[in-house]
């Protein structure tokens, strides 16, 4: 556990330093807000509506695909870690595992999910 103490300290010290620079900047910098300055930036035009648009659902579908393949990739790490000591059996297991998921990838491909337009 003590090896992770450094991680915790880095987290706290890093956050602390960043907040400190924000504070420093707050002390140094000028502050002269006015209503026009505080408008949402839209290339100089008066903002039209809010950021409520119908966004492309493609982004979401890629995120769904990502979760599946990320889980798979992470699940392979413990396997890779002991690959040499387990022999041919582990290799065959992995070929089956990967084949099943590659099948999924090709399914998504054939269904046209990977096409952007």
């Amino acid at each position, binding site marked *: 556990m*003590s*090896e*992770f*103490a450094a*991680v915790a*300290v*880095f987290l706290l*010290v*890093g*956050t602390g330093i*960043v*907040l400190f620079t*924000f504070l*420093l*900047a707050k002390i*140094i*910098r*000028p*502050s*002269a*807000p006015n209503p026009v*300055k*505080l*408008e*949402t*930036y*839209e290339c100089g035009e008066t*903002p039209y509506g*809010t*950021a409520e*648009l119908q966004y*492309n659902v*493609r*982004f979401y579908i*890629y*995120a769904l695909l*990502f979760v599946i*393949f*990320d889980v798979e*990739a*992470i699940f*392979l*790490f413990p396997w*890779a*870690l002991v*690959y*040499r*000591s*387990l*022999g*041919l059996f582990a*290799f065959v297991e992995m*070929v089956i595992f*990967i084949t099943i998921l*590659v099948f999924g*990838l090709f399914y998504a*491909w054939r269904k046209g999910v*990977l*096409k*952007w337009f």
Partner: protein
Amino acid sequence: MLELRGIIDAIWSFIVGLLAGLGIPQWAIELVGYALIAVVMFGVVAVIVLFLVWWERKVSAKMQDRLGPMRVGWHGIIQTIADAIKLLQKEDITPKAIDFPIHFWAPVVTFVAAFMVYVTVPFGKGLIVSDLSVGVLYIIAITTFTVIGLLMAGWGSNNKYSLLGGFRSAAQVVSYEVPLSLALLGVIMISQTLSLGTIVTQQDNLLKWYVWRQPLGFLIFWIAATAECNRTPFDLPEADSELVAGFVTEYSGMKFAMFFLAEFVNMFTASVVAVTLFFGGWMSPFGPDFGPSWMWFLGKTMFFVFVLMWFRWTYPRLRVDQLMGFAWKVLLPLAFLNILLTGLGIYLFDGLK
């Protein structure tokens, strides 16, 4: 030899003597030590980034037959320090429509995530803060916080450009993350460890560099890492002709600086991981004790940073459909192929138990 470990140990034993003399218990000394290391590491990272910003401008200028920054200091070398001071005193414009806590914490999350990677980076012989036993996974895990940070920036700004830029960056980073982890898997299969320190010591001369056994893996990793850093040719999120500045549109002053710093830190991190896993880290090509190890490390890493800058002025930007198609239809199948080939190679050439 110019090894830094001895100097650091000498300074550290002096501090320990001082603190122990004051009657401070052992565990507190350890924590203070880590805190000091963290502050020093922050300084090191900051100096590296300041240098990289200047260097990028110089390299860009040379490639376009310009001079680049020349005014402040010798060949403009302290230009970035001047820029940093300027950013520090810039007015911080936070629009009224933002979601304040999210807008405020997004740059903090992004930067701290980029910074925390350096807990387990071996800078040289003995120069590693904490050689975590799950080091490789730790680095991948911490860098995923970057996605959270930029989604926060995109949402918190409540601006169309920011939101769209955030979506784009997240979809891109996420798509290239799978091939990236799978490419690193090949190295893990050969090295049988996740600790970065051990992976470096396994590659103790030129012939043992893992890049020779993982050429495809390295190629996949390097392309994916370029995309993860949002560098050209994968810099769609900040395609300034379409999205102004992407998710940083509504940021100014020090908050903008944090995103900017994090971008360069991530660029350095990508090079560090490439060097550590594929090119022997701080080991010199001729054996473990040839020249100061940290110089080898920095030299190799700077070369890869230079390659990233070189990419920027060589390749045109991809279209969004090409970008996604490349990750899912080319890199991902290739990464699977790489794992199968690696498994087969280990089986045929090394033999399994």
